[in-house]
């Protein structure tokens, strides 16, 4: 090991290989791509969750064919403040890398649908974001494509999913980032505290595409699990991602907290006139400005939790809630 490598290995030094392993990892040149035998067809429309999912697969080496209608995917125009690079929006530039582009008018042309079905026979993955059932009605849904290609993995993205009565009822509702965030519980936990003036005390959206990126990541993860099953058995399957539960299912907390604790929250907040819209005061105590103070308290042997608290009111509420003794409260306030 060279002296320089030694510097890069705090613990693995003394004849270890860690420096070498890390140096090897820094270099991507000449290394194989995992999905170099995979063809992905992305026909998603005005939905970045699909584009993002395809983008992850492309990064791992898949051949991704982005199929657009003749006028182009409307996603090309979804861009901050209308800023484009020669007519193409920033997010599309960013997520559109590593792909190949072709036009097929599968919405209107039976001829193009046939072409698409032919392509799908060679493909391992199809990604689409049309209204649930729309591709099926055109004769190129999972039902028809999988008959010709049983190994096909068909990833469908929508607002409410591909099954259940609700999905049928709201089938035509398109999926966007902000509705995905709101429907799956992110903004309810973000924003100012109830005593702040409007609109600062409103639920707040995540300042990036938390909904679409989480849907896209979930779709890519589910798709890769399906690819592993396909590798083992040759069997394909359908993957269904619903924007309205992408976030809540990824972090899992809304469901469990909603079930275990919400009753005590409601009791705790009955004095508050805004209870109706503040049924979830988790935000009031826990999810506050990160620049506010942090309270740390220890249990017998270890530090238990670090909690940000905003004001004395909330600290008091927090203490009632955790049933800390007054003495302990005082001690903690003194030491913080």
């Amino acid at each position: 090991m060279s002296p320089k490598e030694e510097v890069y290995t705090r613990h693995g030094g003394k004849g270890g290989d860690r420096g070498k392993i890390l140096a090897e990892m820094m270099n991507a040149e000449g290394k194989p791509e995992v999905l170099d035998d995979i063809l992905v067809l992305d026909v998603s429309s005005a939905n970045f969750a699909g584009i993002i999912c395809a983008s992850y697969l492309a990064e791992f080496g898949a051949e991704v064919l982005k199929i657009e209608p003749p006028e182009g995917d409307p996603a090309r125009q979804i861009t901050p403040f209308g800023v484009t690079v020669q007519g193409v929006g920033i997010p599309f530039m960013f997520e559109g890398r590593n792909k190949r582009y072709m036009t097929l008018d599968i919405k209107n042309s039976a001829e193009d649908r046939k072409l698409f079905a032919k392509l799908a026979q060679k493909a391992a993955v199809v990604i689409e974001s049309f209204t649930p059932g729309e591709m099926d009605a055109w004769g190129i849904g999972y039902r028809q494509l999988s008959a010709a290609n049983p190994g096909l993995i068909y990833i469908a993205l929508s607002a409410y999913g591909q099954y259940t009565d609700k999905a049928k009822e709201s089938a035509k509702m398109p999926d966007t980032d902000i509705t995905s965030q709101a429907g799956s519980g992110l903004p309810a936990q973000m924003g100012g505290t109830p005593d702040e003036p409007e609109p600062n005390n409103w639920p707040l959206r995540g300042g990036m595409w938390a909904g679409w990126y989480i849907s896209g990541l979930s779709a890519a993860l589910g798709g890769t699990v399906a690819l592993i099953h396909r590798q083992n058995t040759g069997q394909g399957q359908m993957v269904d991602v619903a924007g309205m539960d992408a976030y809540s299912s990824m972090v899992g907390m809304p469901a469990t907290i909603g079930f275990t604790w919400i009753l005590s929250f409601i009791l705790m907040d009955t004095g508050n006139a805004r209870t109706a819209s503040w049924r979830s005061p988790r935000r009031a105590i826990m999810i506050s400005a990160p620049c506010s103070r942090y309270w740390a308290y220890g249990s017998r042997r270890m530090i238990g939790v670090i909690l940000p608290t905003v004001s004395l009111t909330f600290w008091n509420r927090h203490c009632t809630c955790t049933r800390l003794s007054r003495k302990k409260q005082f001690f903690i306030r003194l030491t913080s």
Partner: protein
Amino acid sequence: MEDYFSYTAKLFNPDEASQKPEALKGIRVLDFSHVIFGPIAARLLADYGAEVIKLELPFFGDLWRPATYWGKYWKHSNPIWHNITKNKYFLSVNLQLKESKELIYKMAEKADVVIENFAPGTADAWGIGHEKISKINPKIIFLSCSTYGQFGPMRYFPGWDLLAQGASGVLTLNGYPDTDIYYKLPDYVGDFVPGNFGALSVLMALYHRKKTGKGQYIDMAQTEGLMRMLFNYTYHSVTKEAIGRTGNTDPTMVPASIFKTADDKFLALACATAEQFKNFTSAMNMTQLADDKRFAETLERLKPENAKELTKIATDWVKTKSCADIVKLADEKNFPAAEVADDYMIANEEWRRKRGSVVLFKDDVYGDLVIAGPSAMLSGTPSRTKWLARPLGYHNRLVLKKFLGLSETEIEKLEKKKVIGTFDDRPGLKPPVYYDLSKDPIYNYGKEVGK
């Protein structure tokens, strides 16, 4: 032809999920990680059928076990912890002893994946890092999770969710323009998203190993995982300006914001395309807006001055309608709208239960708990919940006996030397008070128990 939704209802039927095959059956994962970032990657593998053995220190356990919101426990456990570590085997070994390391090395011989998230270099210093494990088992896939990566100038800085949110730039994006108040993304998104990336890369490595027989080392940096979600850098390189904070308004679509309705509820509404906008104007009975040259074209509509104008029109309209009315209109006219869902709604809405994205799970030890289902539903090899988190060291005997093939006397010896251990009296580590462990057949695996 059969109706599409009755076809998909059969294809995805959540009641049949537990009988379907598991994609990762036979994959063994050693999970050295703690808190959320590493454990969630391991849990995702466990959800799809991998055998995940979680290692913890006796009488101490994972840091996150007792760390519940407001110190409020549910049946002496951290309810959130159940979501993070379900479906795993809980083994508790004392890493300070030589025998424990031998035990780990023996397990590593047959393992496929190792996951750790200590500060970079720590696992190697303890002799359980990639360097050592890959010598024992060259085909191993080793995932190291950290905040800033295994190499680079920031590598020795420890970190967690909030620091990664700060370092990636996510923190600067949440909040209102022209204020100095920043908000963090809730629910440890900074752990869950990179954890999902970690699981994704392990799956890719498994796919590669099947083809070539080669394992590999994966370096997953939390900060980079969050950065992958931002196109803001690209925006900056084009315009030399920052997108900055835009409050509740999404600058990529117009109108796209969170509004307050006539009945004091909050509603997210967005129009991503010209078509959706047209549908929205017809719902508002203001179809003339769709022909207005300021709003007709998407790119024109997105210009800040036009966007402001249109957002104001939308705000005023939403104010006159109830939330339920607008959502109903959205269903009919086909534009995106959703009520801002809070924990209570998510836990109780019927369609989520039917879909399986929120599940009332009946556990042998803890009883009924509502937990989240997967965010991607697979028709062939669905993710599933088999059991919730378990007390510290609950699967000691099962893992040693069934997976490692140790004899009763060997296990007793290990117990005596305190190589393996269990919980003490702290909540989060111990079982619920009403639960009699001495009668539990899994905790006492291989012993006779009177059930």
